């Protein structure tokens, strides 16, 4: 079995809200998983548990069989990159300086970026097509550019697993499709992806699995076809199936519609 990250019997609660009771799931090394669920169902929390920034109350999150609790955050960050939803940078750092921060888990106390570090940064910029943005100021980028640059920082960490928190948020349809293209490209490079997604229509294009979170229920795991069924979506998202999202048409039509 080739499991990159495993949630084993994970329990996690916030002071007044229990989110996960006994979460069991695993991310295979080449998976591309969309994490869906209604607001407040714990998508971001699950990503933070996967990144080691939150620790489960019970149970274990394991990276290649090793408990994340036993690893240093530096070690985790060399295998898992979390791309947060909102990033606010104090001071006008350029895109290149921003992406270079992805090398933080590799740097020693003294000394700057090594040639290997620079190569990783260049490679991350090439994959995300952000070379042309390198001397722009991060805070002045548009939403779509910002998203690509954030992903580039994650890729500079040379991770085996990339965690994306709502990567499609505030993007227009053109930028969304651009990002879907990027996710497909990353899949071809063998990087596993777990992305929380609001827009269910875009999932089938790029993702091989869907995890559906619902408050107080077991995590539903399956292929997009299996999980994104009208009645299930209707139940989990509490919306009438007939007025649900448009993804419920036959798959062949949809991919034609979306392909550009």
């Amino acid at each position, binding site marked *: 079995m080739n499991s990159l990250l495993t949630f084993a019997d994970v329990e996690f609660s916030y002071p007044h809200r229990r989110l996960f009771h006994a979460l069991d799931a695993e991310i295979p090394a080449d998976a591309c998983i969309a994490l869906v669920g209604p607001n407040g169902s714990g998508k971001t929390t699950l990503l933070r548990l996967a*990144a*080691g*920034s939150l620790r489960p109350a019970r149970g274990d999150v394991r990276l290649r069989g090793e408990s994340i609790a036993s690893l*240093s*955050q*530096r070690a*985790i*960050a060399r295998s898992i990159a*979390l791309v*947060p939803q909102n*990033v*606010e*940078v*104090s*001071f*006008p*750092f*350029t895109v290149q*300086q*921003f992406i270079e*921060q*992805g090398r*933080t*888990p590799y*740097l020693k*106390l*003294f000394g*700057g970026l090594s040639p290997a570090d620079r190569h990783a940064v260049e490679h991350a910029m090439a994959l995300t097509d952000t070379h042309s943005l390198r*001397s722009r100021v991060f805070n002045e980028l548009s939403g779509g550019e910002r998203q690509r640059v954030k992903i580039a920082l994650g890729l500079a*960490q040379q991770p085996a697993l990339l965690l994306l928190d709502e990567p499609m948020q505030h993007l227009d349809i053109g930028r969304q499709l651009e990002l879907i293209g990027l996710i497909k490209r990353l899949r071809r490079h063998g990087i596993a992806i777990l992305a929380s997604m609001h827009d269910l229509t875009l999932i089938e294009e790029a993702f091989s699995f869907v995890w559906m979170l619902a408050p107080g229920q077991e995590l539903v795991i399956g292929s997009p076809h299996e999980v994104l069924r009208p009645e299930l979506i209707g139940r989990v998202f509490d919306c009438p199936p007939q007025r649900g999202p448009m993804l419920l048409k036959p798959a062949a039509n949809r991919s034609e519609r979306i392909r550009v």
Partner: protein
Amino acid sequence: MAGKIEPMRPAALARALFARRSGYEMLLAAFALALLLGVAVAACLGAVPIPLRNVAATLLGGHALTSDQNLILLNIRLPRILAAIMAGSALSVSGLLFQGLFRNPLADPYVIGSSGGAVLGAAVGIFLFPQLSIAGFSATAFLGVLGAICSISLVYALASVNGRTPVVALLLAGFAVSTMLSYCSYFLEIMDHDFGTGLRVLTSWLRGTMAQPTWPQIAVMACMVLVGMGASLPLTRKLNTLALGEEYAAHLGLHLQQTRIAVIVVGSLLTAVAVALGGLISFVGLIVPHMMRMILGPDHVRLLPATALAGGIFLLVADTAARTMIAPSELPVGVLTAFIGGPFFLYLLRQAKKEVFA
């Protein structure tokens, strides 16, 4: 907008120029040269003018001066010059560190009360434990560092909200703490019964007058400055990472608590050195890092050496002006930096207006 070509602003032009390694190294070399030149010129100026070529000859080992001039140069002017350079450097670098930590360009050792803490700590040492010394250092120096650490930790705890320090909260907390500290110092002054040297020292600190240190004092201070600068070096990269926000930085493997403590200790050490040399000198830690950021961009690693050099030059020029402008009497350099820095601070505040008045 169509057809209109924006002229490149000078700051943007400078950033493009110094973005290259060679440009950056040239800038540092130019600063170093300017500092040397500044030392030479400042050594000539004063109540007793000394010709430049005689200064140069003496420093290179000759005997071109009369014994009076020699005395003035070696025992009065050079120590004062070195004190100004070290204080300016230390203040600017601690300003840079605090701005990175607070993620706020308005953080200055004076504004946020760390200078006030150092004065109070040192005043406690002078008035209450004048004879005490720890490992050869007088308690005064030690208590000065401690006072700076305590006051900035207090301001940080008061002003930070989820790891960010909003401008208003920072300024108010800094104002309240530094006001309390200044008046505590006055209180100590009243408690003092022999109205002796302690009072004079405190008064000159509160005004921001450059001290006339002895050579052994200079050696001790120089060691502290070097230690502080050396310790800042690994911290600058961490401050770059911290600029992404605390949560993101922690995810990338930065130890937040360690970094915060290290920055506060190193910044306070530098503040305390500056206070010991020149008392409450306002706004230097604000102006110099800001100007360097304008021409070099926000990378703290590159800013550190440039800020250290420029801070030395800035305060040397300011202090030389302060002691020669109305010769034979002299102005406290703190008065001069307040005149220059006050409007500058207001300008920066106006830049941050959106955040302040939102």
